[in-house]
């Protein structure tokens, strides 16, 4: 374990994903360049073996897209994705399909990501079938034991249920079970706990940590819930409008957020005390769109510390006290 923690499992280099925007063809004729949604715009990071990297950020900032591109559910516009030193973005269709058992995704919405007409036992054993692992009896055995592990008890009864016959928390556990059934090395967990109430959420987070330790997993944990991120992540990357603005160790980030957006994010967490109503710094200004990205630093339109240079020059992700941050406040120049 000690040795392998140093090893990089996934490394993402200059990844971009632009979606072409649909416009009426009358307008399309007039414009020379087709407008695009710059969902992710040149991001780089890596994840070590056994590590959990959190990806937090604004709604629509490209977190889900990052997850989907990394496991190549959609094709990147450009950039490299090295998984175990192999470039996933260059794998052929068939090789990619075979490699899929090594990296899995837990999708944002547990109900929508389960086939409504497939019993959950089948849903969970299907990846094994696809990758021709084990005999039918072994597969069933494995699924049942997994159900017990994720606390879907009695496992035999759950095996034959349909998704709609489960509560939100139970569905979430099914999705987790499906993701780990092939013993993958890497899992992208997209808002795995968003729809759950605090009590169930804590149980699921504990479960995810247990499974991770059992199977030696690595997670990319996408969330907007800072409390969950704080609990489960080793490091956290903060995204804003398609860019990573800060990466730091979880404890550092919570102790002293550097980037102004991170600070605002930390400050906006609702405090469960009605007497403290409204005492936050909330950025003024409209949320800029990923179609017309602001010049210079993307956050300058809403940043309380913005200066002239911010609207002109895009800050790079640079090291500052052993952490990475993209902001002119910390740029040495």
């Amino acid at each position, binding site marked *: 374990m000690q040795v392998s923690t140093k090893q990089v499992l996934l490394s993402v280099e200059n990844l971009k994903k632009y979606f072409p925007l649909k416009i009426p063809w009358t307008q399309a004729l007039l414009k020379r360049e087709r407008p695009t949604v710059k969902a992710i715009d040149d991001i780089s990071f890596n994840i070590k073996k056994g590590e959990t990297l959190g990806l937090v950020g604004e709604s629509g900032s490209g977190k889900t897209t990052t997850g*989907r591109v990394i*496991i190549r*559910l959609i094709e990147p516009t450009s950039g490299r994705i090295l998984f175990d030193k192999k470039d996933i973005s260059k794998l052929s269709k068939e090789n990619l*399909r*075979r*490699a*899929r*058992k090594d990296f*899995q*995704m837990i*999708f*944002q*919405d547990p109900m*929508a*990501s*389960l*086939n*409504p*007409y*497939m019993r959950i036992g089948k849903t969970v054993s*299907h*990846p094994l079938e*696809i*990758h021709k692992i084990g005999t039918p009896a072994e597969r069933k055995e494995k699924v049942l034991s997994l159900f017990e592990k994720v606390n879907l008890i009695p496992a035999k*009864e759950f095996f034959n249920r349909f998704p*709609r016959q489960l509560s939100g928390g139970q569905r979430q556990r099914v999705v987790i079970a*499906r993701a780990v059934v*092939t013993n993958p090395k890497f899992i992208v967990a997209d808002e795995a706990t968003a729809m759950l109430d605090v009590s169930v959420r804590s149980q699921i987070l504990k479960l995810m940590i247990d499974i991770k330790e059992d199977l030696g997993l690595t997670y990319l944990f996408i969330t907007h819930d800072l409390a969950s991120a704080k609990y489960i992540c080793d490091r956290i990357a903060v995204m804003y409008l398609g860019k990573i603005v800060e990466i730091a160790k979880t404890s550092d980030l919570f102790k002293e957020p550097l980037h102004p957006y991170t600070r605002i994010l930390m400050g906006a967490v609702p405090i469960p005390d009605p007497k403290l109503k409204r005492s936050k710094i909330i950025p003024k200004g409209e949320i800029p769109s990923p179609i017309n990205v602001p010049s210079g630093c993307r956050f300058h339109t809403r940043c309380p510390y913005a200066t002239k240079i911010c609207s002109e020059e895009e800050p790079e992700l640079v090291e500052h006290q052993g952490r990475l941050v993209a902001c002119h406040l910390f740029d040495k120049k």
Partner: protein
Amino acid sequence: MANTTNTNYGNQMLSSRIGRGFRQLMGDSSGVMTFIGLILLSLFVLMAIFAPYISPYSPVEPSGAPLLSPQWGHIMGTTNLGYDVFSRFIWGSRMALLIAVIATSIAAFIGIPTGLLVGYAGGVTDRIVTMIMDSVYTFPGLILAIAIAAMLGPGVLNISLSIAVVYIPTYYRVIRSQVSTIKSELYVEGARSIGAKNMTIIGKYILPNVLPSTIVVLSMNIADAVMTEAGLSFLGLGIPPPVPDWGYDLAKGQQFLLQNDWWMVVFPGIAIILLVLGFSMFAEGMDEYLNPNIGEKR
């Protein structure tokens, strides 16, 4: 497993689906509609199956004087050739159902897989096939069927074929449009993420989700096919006489309407209307009930 506290809903003998269906039949008014549709259909199906036993006379031999009005012995009267109208009414259900079922099966057999494959593939193939299907679809159905039937000549299979061509686009369109939305559902993406092959995705993740609406289209189409078949026979393009066929009888009877011999028209007409009604009511009701979101959490 089953909870015994509730005798009304617990421990049902019927399979879950049917059980749920029946419960809904009792519930709101759409259930009543399905139920009536179902009864009508069963009546016609039973009539078709047991025609030899329940029809009082042979439908293809004179059994009395020509053009008798409804009376004891011939409750629906007789035709101009002295055939018993009631017997032809009963035997006619065979032909109507047979052709409707064959035609819809052919249409479904071609339309559904095409819709699935093309909808899933998308892109240029999609655009071309859809254009062809749409042009067939926008063509008036009966006219198209007439043209093809005229080309192929009479006979059960030929008639079925010419009706089928009219309905292939219906399946195609319904399936394709559903597939293209289901394709972007998260669970299909989930299937891709576990490394499922395209054929597996189509067969196990997409097909089950479009099947319910196919059943609805199926029963609606059968209704349509019954009418189209009657229409073809009416125009003399259908099954050659004396095989009992409502459309043909309707056409024949029409000639005698002027002399007030209404029964030759009215009874085959009623048969067609009831059968069509039966299928459509059934289809409507099924639509309501098969929709997976109804009766579940929204």
